């Protein structure tokens, strides 16, 4: 390696750190040395890249609770001094109060000014020179108050209240097999609940509201090593049975579905419309800038087969980018970069415009999708929520699906977004930071883009000879009527390329004690007699119906499940880990069914099941989240 390239003056020169004499010396060297000049240029490129990548927002943030804690730590203002003369007194106390008011107001309404690269590099010495506690206008504060001390509503005025909403729901109870031997539900691959929980625990430093905790989404956040489909197969279904860690006399059945991975070369073309919320409330580092980064990652995966259009909805909704071929990256990324937040939300007409664009560019046999990115603040004005849901549902029937990406906090409408993605046949993810954006858009981007099977439903029949009662863990929002299973007109969830789906059943073995109040025996019917099949030693039979993405008639798969009586210690790492995640979810919800679950046990269980797979780092992160919840005074 050439020694003159090791000269630290090169980098110092690029960064403007050399004094005049050293600069002259270096420039003399550079004048005669073309190679050295090229080296310098290369260093310049690298430092520019580093400034750009590291100087921007990381997607990390201090949530509102933390800012409050910081404010609490400030010294309390001294009481106003009382002056002897009455008139003076009034004047003085007003004058004393005003700065406090002003400061208080300014803390709540720091407005975001345009970032100026120059501002970011404002030298510290200027600040120091004017005294540590003096106001310094020249500092510019990077032009940005990254993360605010108060929140802005759509009209730019501060909001002091939390308008997030999470639907509360009761968990699925234990059901006696003698009363109802069937369980029917729609498959779901949403992962938003996990990142929401993470955001509460990490950025806000508090426990999440129970309504935000959907156990099946926590479990489904992770990938599991289910058998890969062979060529020609769309997906595989596999099961594993062991004991429930929180109730050792109960059995736990894990059902796993693995969809085939995408063959990137042979993937179908995508017709995508990004429907982006650019209302005033999106003006925060963890919203619009993070959203742009996320979409950038997706755009990098597209090519000439694909088409992208961008529609915004705020005040007046608009077509920011007409359908553009996927390889015109500069145009697409340019349009993304130019998006700015402002105006109030009118989600309704933006959605209609987005669907219109998608319809115009409809690709038969391809993926047609509207991807909605928002903080959920639907000030829809004309359109009601149920009208929106109906619209989304009818468009999905016509082949244009809707996926939803949630961002931000403070006015996040989890319940609305989940419903829209559900009816829109798409998945719903909550993006709390850049790493999550990468997971959703890149690692699992194939699943967002390409549907392998739609209207996927599961119906399980339990064997009374082996099972006294059962409980489906999670999926409360996905439960279907039993007759919906065979009704092809009833919508259900879809599975994207490469996705895995996991469902857990907790079983009370035959003869065991069933938690909860029982149901009276029927007066007009005798208890059912078991059929010969009940003697075959099966725990249950799983039936699965699905349709091809463009199909209208469902296909049926059937799979019996036996219990190998393996104790939990012998179960696979994937099984134990999924059980640990479910246990974590039940603890967060303070579930009536959590049995003997504890945070400490859950940590041990999870730690022992991290395994060697690709999502080790994510699994370790879960362990930390469990520990965090415990410290926050979890029950």
């Amino acid at each position: 390696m050439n020694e003159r390239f090791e000269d630290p003056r090169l980098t110092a020169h690029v960064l403007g750190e050399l004094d005049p004499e050293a600069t002259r010396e270096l420039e003399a060297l550079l004048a005669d040395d073309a190679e050295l000049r090229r080296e310098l240029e290369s260093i310049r490129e690298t430092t520019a890249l580093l400034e750009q990548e590291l100087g921007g927002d990381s997607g990390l943030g201090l949530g509102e609770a933390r800012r409050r804690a910081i404010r609490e730590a400030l010294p309390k203002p001294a009481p106003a001094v009382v002056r002897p003369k009455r008139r003076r007194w009034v004047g003085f106390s007003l004058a004393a109060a005003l700065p406090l008011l002003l400061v208080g107001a300014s803390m709540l309404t720091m407005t975001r000014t345009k970032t100026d690269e120059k501002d970011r590099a404002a030298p510290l010495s200027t600040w120091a020179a004017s005294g540590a506690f003096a106001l310094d206008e020249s500092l510019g504060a990077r032009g940005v108050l990254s993360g605010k001390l108060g929140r802005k509503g759509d009209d730019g005025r501060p909001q002091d209240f939390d308008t997030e909403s999470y639907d509360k729901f009761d968990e699925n109870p234990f059901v006696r097999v003698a009363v109802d031997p069937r369980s029917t539900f729609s498959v779901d691959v949403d992962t938003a609940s996990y990142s929401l929980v993470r955001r509460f625990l990490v950025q806000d430093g508090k426990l999440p509201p129970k309504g935000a905790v959907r156990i099946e989404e926590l479990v489904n956040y992770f990938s599991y090593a289910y058998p890969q489909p062979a060529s020609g197969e769309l997906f595989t279904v596999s099961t594993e049975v062991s004991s429930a860690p929180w109730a050792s006399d109960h059995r736990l059945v894990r059902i796993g579905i693995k969809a085939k991975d995408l063959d990137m070369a042979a993937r179908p073309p995508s017709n995508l419309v990004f429907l982006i919320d650019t209302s005033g409330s999106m003006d925060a580092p963890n919203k619009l800038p993070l959203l742009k980064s996320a979409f950038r990652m997706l755009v990098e995966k597209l090519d000439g087969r694909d088409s992208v259009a961008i529609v915004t909805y705020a005040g007046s909704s608009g077509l920011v980018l007409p359908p553009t071929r996927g390889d015109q990256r500069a145009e697409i990324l340019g349009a993304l970069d130019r998006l700015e937040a402002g105006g109030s939300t009118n989600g309704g007409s933006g959605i209609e415009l987005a669907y219109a664009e998608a319809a115009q560019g409809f690709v038969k046999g391809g993926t047609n999708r509207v991807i909605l990115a928002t903080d959920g603040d639907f000030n829809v004005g004309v359109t009601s929520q149920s009208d929106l849901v109906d619209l989304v549902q009818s468009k999905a029937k016509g082949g244009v699906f809707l996926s939803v990406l949630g961002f931000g906090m403070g006015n996040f409408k989890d319940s609305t977004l989940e419903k829209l993605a559900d009816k829109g046949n798409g998945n719903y993810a909550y993006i709390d930071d850049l790493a999550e954006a990468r997971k959703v858009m890149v690692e699992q981007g194939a699943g967002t883009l390409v549907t392998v099977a739609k209207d996927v439903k599961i119906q399980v029949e339990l064997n009374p000879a082996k099972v006294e009662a059962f409980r489906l863990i999670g999926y409360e929002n996905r439960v279907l009527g039993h007759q919906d299973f065979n009704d092809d007109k009833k919508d259900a969830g879809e599975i994207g390329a490469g996705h895995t789906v996991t469902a857990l059943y907790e079983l009370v073995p035959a003869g065991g004690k069933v938690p909860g109040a029982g149901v009276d025996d029927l007066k007009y019917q005798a208890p059912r007699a078991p059929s010969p099949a009940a003697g075959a030693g099966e725990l249950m039979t799983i039936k699965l119906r699905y349709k091809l993405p463009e199909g209208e008639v469902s296909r049926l798969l059937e799979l019996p499940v036996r219990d190998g009586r393996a104790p939990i210690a012998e179960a696979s790492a994937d099984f134990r880990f999924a059980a640990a995640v479910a246990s974590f979810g039940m603890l967060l919800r303070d579930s009536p069914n959590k049995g003997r679950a504890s945070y400490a046990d859950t940590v041990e269980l999870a730690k022992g099941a991290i395994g060697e797979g690709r999502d080790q780092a994510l699994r370790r992160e879960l362990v930390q989240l469990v520990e965090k919840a415990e410290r926050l005074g979890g029950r």
Partner: protein
Amino acid sequence: MAAPEAPDARRDFVTRALARFEQPLLRYAASLVGRLHAPDVVQDTFVALCKAEPGEVEGHLAAWLFRVCKNRALDQRRRSGRLAELENEDDMESPDSGPASRVERAQALDRVERALGSLNEQQRQVVLLKFSAGLKYQEIAEAMQLSASNVGFILHTAVNAIRRELGETEPVLREARSLP
């Protein structure tokens, strides 16, 4: 400062410090203790700023913030049971602070973060103070208790290492060729 400082001045000061340094400190903390614990550490840092004596901080806010942040981060690491860090601030190369593991790097956000993962902790700290916090060499020197020329050397080495990782250039001796 002789006169007692007005509480409003302190409030303003902290507000501006937050605006200027929240992101760089979060990034820095995340490089030490991971994304999950970074907000805790940074919150503690700003709480400490609220309570600090003016004399401590005046004139070298960045150095103070990053030093406190690092200390809190080290506390956090000790609490979570990782290897004890060396107390000597001059030597950041404790066994646990080397290049990020292959798995962690594979999970890194983007190629720049991956490239950062190949640096040792001292190099990472200098890079973040320069490109994330926008500090000058002298300020970095103060924050890390090194000489400015040390900083220049570390930064140059780090930038070269990053270039190699990004594959932008081969640092081998190029054949001398006559070019127009």
